């Protein structure tokens, strides 16, 4: 039996029809996979954002697990409270899982995420990183890469998009003391499921960041979500790795390294980088970032 056989993915669907995600939504695919890995014995807390908007409708909930949406910035703290309550009820068999976007994680909810990790709550925090505030119309976030044209960092006559690099939140989570930190991609479903399952077994704070290709914001055909995710990984811009107790323990090796242009040119929000010669410096910088990732994570 091949290791990557489709049969090895749990059959049970815990994120079902009823949601209104865009065609090709990477987050819907990732959410399905995450819940296949966690199984039923969870309580999910979701921050305001795309996921809550397309999967949190009154009377049309697609969640087959207990699910709560509080606010944009407090999913980690609410999850802390749920976990504390479960302790007092002696129901520590139930795992609390946060599913939040990058805006709710990197920016507005960062303080409370840091507090949750520091207090060592037994919570698995999954950040669905589509690299912008996509729910509100593709504004830049702390997760947006350098050179990206968003609606609040648009490309223009004198602009080549976002001028700052993105935050390295996984590194911050390691420094914060998370027991397990990993990155994943819905384009690598077996890897994603394995990492979620591993985090489920750990009694302590864990953080998994999932790269989310978004046809709507990143601008690519909705049939290409999985392919785009794979190309992003193959450039080194989205490194997949695991850090346990502060030590790098695994990374997804790149079989054939691609230049960053392979990824950038497929995404509409980088088209300005190829419209004139001015984009070359940005591409060069992003290539440097990718190369640095390859070296740092031994990809």
């Amino acid at each position: 039996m091949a290791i990557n056989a489709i049969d090895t993915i749990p059959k049970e669907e815990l994120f079902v029809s009823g949601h209104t995600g865009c065609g090709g939504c990477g987050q819907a695919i990732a959410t399905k996979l995450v819940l296949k890995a966690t199984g039923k014995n969870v309580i999910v807390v979701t921050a305001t954002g795309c996921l809550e908007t397309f999967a949190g409708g009154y009377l049309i909930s697609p969640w087959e697990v207990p699910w709560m949406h509080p606010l944009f910035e407090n999913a980690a703290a609410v999850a802390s409270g749920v976990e504390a309550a479960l302790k007092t009820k002696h129901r520590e068999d139930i795992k609390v899982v946060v599913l939040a976007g990058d805006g709710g994680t990197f920016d507005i909810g960062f303080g409370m995420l840091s507090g949750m990790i520091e207090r060592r709550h037994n919570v698995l925090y999954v950040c669905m990183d589509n690299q912008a505030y996509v729910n509100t119309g593709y504004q830049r976030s702390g997760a947006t890469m350098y050179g990206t044209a968003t609606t609040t960092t648009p490309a223009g006559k004198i602009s080549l998009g976002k001028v700052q690099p993105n935050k390295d939140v996984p590194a911050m989570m390691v420094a914060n003391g998370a027991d397990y930190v990993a990155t994943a991609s819905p384009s690598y479903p077996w890897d994603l499921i394995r990492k979620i399952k591993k985090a489920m077994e750990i009694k302590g704070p864990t953080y998994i960041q999932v790269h989310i290709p978004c046809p709507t914001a990143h601008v690519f055909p909705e049939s290409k979500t999985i392919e785009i995710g794979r190309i992003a990984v193959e450039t080194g811009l989205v490194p997949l790795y695991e850090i346990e107790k502060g030590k790098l323990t695994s990374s997804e090796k790149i079989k054939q390294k691609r230049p960053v242009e392979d990824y950038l040119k497929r995404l509409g929000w980088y088209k300005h980088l190829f419209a004139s010669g001015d984009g070359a410096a940005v591409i060069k910088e992003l290539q440097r970032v990718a190369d640095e990732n390859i070296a740092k994570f031994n990809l």
Partner: protein
Amino acid sequence: MGKTEVMEISRGIAEAIKACRPQVIASFPITPQTHIIEHLAQMVANGELDCEYIPSDSEFASASIVHGASAAGVRAYTASASQGLLLMTEVLWNMAGTRLPVVLTGANRALSAPISIQCDHQDTFSLRDSGVMQMYVEDAQESYDAHIQAYKLAEDPDVLLPIMVCVDGWSLTHAWEPIELLAQELVDKFLPPYHPVQYLTPDNPISYGTAYDDRALMEYRYIMQKAMDCAKSKAVKVADEFNEMFGRHHGGLIQEYRMDDAEIGILAMGSIIGTVKVAIDEMRAEGIKVGLVKVRFYRPFPADEIIKAVKDTRCIAVIDRNISLGAGGALAADVMAALYNFKNHPLVLGCLAGIGGREVTRNTVRNIVARAQKAIDTGKVEEMNEWVGLNPEIMED
């Protein structure tokens, strides 16, 4: 029945919370709330209180933690004041909207800027519209008793709203007075373990905090308003049941004092009630027909009860320890709105006093009554909002 001890009221509040057996407590320090959460931490450290005590990273986190705990079906508590309550505001609206019966203490303190640690009601009044019930207490024993009543009211299946017990900073939180601590078995009888109607559990998955739109949001608000309305009769019932079991009654939604034949009625809240009562006794001895309506609940607002209490007076003076800048005292505005459609209603004098910790003395009360008498004599109220106790020297230049 219970054991009476002289103690700081903050400890009394902590003792009340302990007696309510919360399963999750979240705290973040802010003056003048700190002693409450410190006492609770010590009780947990001593093994006297079995609960998850979570010192959090902000008031926003504290409110969120108890929100999550309550959604998971357990009894939860937090406390804050001033800026902390402002920081909690978004969560408190969310908590009310998700109908979770969390109890919190608001240790009343002024809002910044200018920064001040002294007492007024600006902080808790800013949460007026949030769906969190608000109860204002008068003294040490009521500070203790009200917290036990608060859980019973909030957790009533017909209410299911958070409630904030508003306790004046310093004059209550830091005062030492005798408090009767009730016997645990009787508190357990009065307040049985919390049985939530629904909660987050894999045994019965529900979706909580979903998105509504124009098809249902208005009805949702209507139902919340009905719950607030229902809370009025329930609050009276809880106070009566408490009285029956423990022999103490601090008022239901309001409490009247010497109002029977009063021509002038004073409406006030919180720790100044005692001072107002003493001033009323003095003035009564001089033949001035003045009485008091202690406004115990601000939300739900006891409009009918206030109308009934003041309908035979000629003028009422409403003391506000807050100001809605650009309008006036918020309690006075609500009282005026309640009375407007009532035929032959008394004159209403809005009095801004006790702001930023400015002391409200017997003379302040006499001053207010003199202004009310002037309104009666002239048949009109000159100023919608009278500032009582302003020092003109401060405002020179």
